[in-house]
């Protein structure tokens, strides 16, 4: 830091005045890089040829002035000051070959690059804003026409819809989920019920075909169902010991008789 103090004395009156002017405006700067860029303009050279060493001196003088005027500087200004002091020492001292990291020249070059890049972006921004702008220099259509959305409805139906629709009209009935069609089935329960009522009269051997329900002999499907259930019911009754069964020959009629005595 002794370097910085020494530099404070080195600076000219003009520099100090300039630095003071900057300090008054410290709120107007957008951080240390912005301040450095402003300071660099006093060198009146191309940013590529700027003396980073001089710039570091100017910046440090600025910070000293601020301190002297008891102006609070934001932390990042002080960080930059410390770094520039370090950079200055590196630039002034002969390079130490044992030292690692970038050389003072490299650091200075990067700072110069940063300043140049920031300036370039500012120039670019100015050029951009100077362009003709929509709604200021050139204009879009004033009388716009909305694109009207037309909804077109496409109706569809499947063949099954058609079938079901037709069946509905023919049956005046809603379709139910598929269930077994029981119209043509004579269940064993039905056969049992029927035969229990009849066997009381079967003292003699009688063909079980005579126990078939009335009206079921017209439709062969119904006939088959009734035959099967009547036969099954006969077996059940025999098992219960209520009837006896006999068959004289293969495919001969099966005969049934009430079992006596129980």
């Amino acid at each position, binding site marked *: 830091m002794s370097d910085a103090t020494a530099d404070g004395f080195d600076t000219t009156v003009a520099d100090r005045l300039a630095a003071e002017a900057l300090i008054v405006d410290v709120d107007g700067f957008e951080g240390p890089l912005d301040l450095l860029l402003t300071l660099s303009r006093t060198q009146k050279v191309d940013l590529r040829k700027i003396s980073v060493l001089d710039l570091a001196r100017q910046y440090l003088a600025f910070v000293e002035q601020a301190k002297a005027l008891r102006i609070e500087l934001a932390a990042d200004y002080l960080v930059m000051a410390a770094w520039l002091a370090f950079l200055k020492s590196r630039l002034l001292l002969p390079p130490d070959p044992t030292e690692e990291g970038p050389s003072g020249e490299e650091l200075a070059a990067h700072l110069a690059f940063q300043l140049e890049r920031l300036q370039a972006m500012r120039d670019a921004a100015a050029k951009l804003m100077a362009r003709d702008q929509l709604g200021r220099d050139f*204009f879009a259509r004033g009388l716009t026409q909305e694109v009207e959305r037309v909804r077109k409805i496409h109706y569809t139906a499947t063949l099954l819809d058609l079938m079901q629709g037709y069946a509905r009209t023919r049956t005046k009935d809603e379709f139910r989920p598929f269930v077994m069609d029981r119209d043509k089935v004579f269940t064993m329960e039905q056969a049992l019920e029927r035969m229990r009522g009849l066997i009381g009269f079967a003292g003699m051997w009688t063909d079980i075909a005579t126990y078939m329900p009335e009206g079921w002999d017209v439709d062969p499907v119904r006939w088959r169902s009734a035959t099967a259930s009547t036969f099954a019911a006969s077996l059940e009754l025999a098992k219960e010991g209520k009837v006896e069964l006999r068959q004289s020959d293969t495919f001969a009629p099966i005969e049934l008789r009430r079992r006596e005595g129980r």
Partner: protein
Amino acid sequence: MQIETHKDTERSLFAAPPMGEQERMVEAILFATADAVTVKELNDRLPHGSDAAEALVHLRKRYEGRGVNVVKVGDAWAIRTAPDLGFLMQKETVETRKLSRAAIETLAIIAYHQPVTRAEIEEIRGVSVSRGTVDQLLEMEWIRFGRRKMTPGRPVTFVVTQTFLDHFGLESARDLPGLKELRAAGLLENRPPFGAMPQMGEGDVDAEEETQEGQSELFED
């Protein structure tokens, strides 16, 4: 070149710009203004000495037959889409909807009983058929008018169209499966009143196996 002409206008403060320039100016104003602009307004906005009315004549001619035209709206002027291109300002969105139950039933009856009169449809459905339903089916081109019945009043009949057959993947209306086949295929259960089966279904009883094959094809895609 644009810039030069612009400079010309500026240089001669009071001389009106050339007519070509005035036309450009009117064009830009009509384009950018939200409302139609009167000749007076145009003249107020154009450089002193301009003749908006004349510029409009040229501009109007320039836009003749173009995609947009310079048109007079009341006593003002505007650039508007050419009338024949109005369709471009519409965006069609297609929505697919299931046909209503009434329409499906009506359609089914026509398909199974064609040619069929409205009275016959109503008799089968047990309810009157709304004009809208028939119109919808006609508009979809699924049904069309058949020949008139040779009965008193000579009522018109309806038949299904090729479009209908194409939609349902049928070669002819005769290929429509009968209710018997549908039941046999286990697809539905119903108790049709005896003798109510339509002709078309009955003819296929012998060809049961074949029909079922056809049906599964029909119902599985």
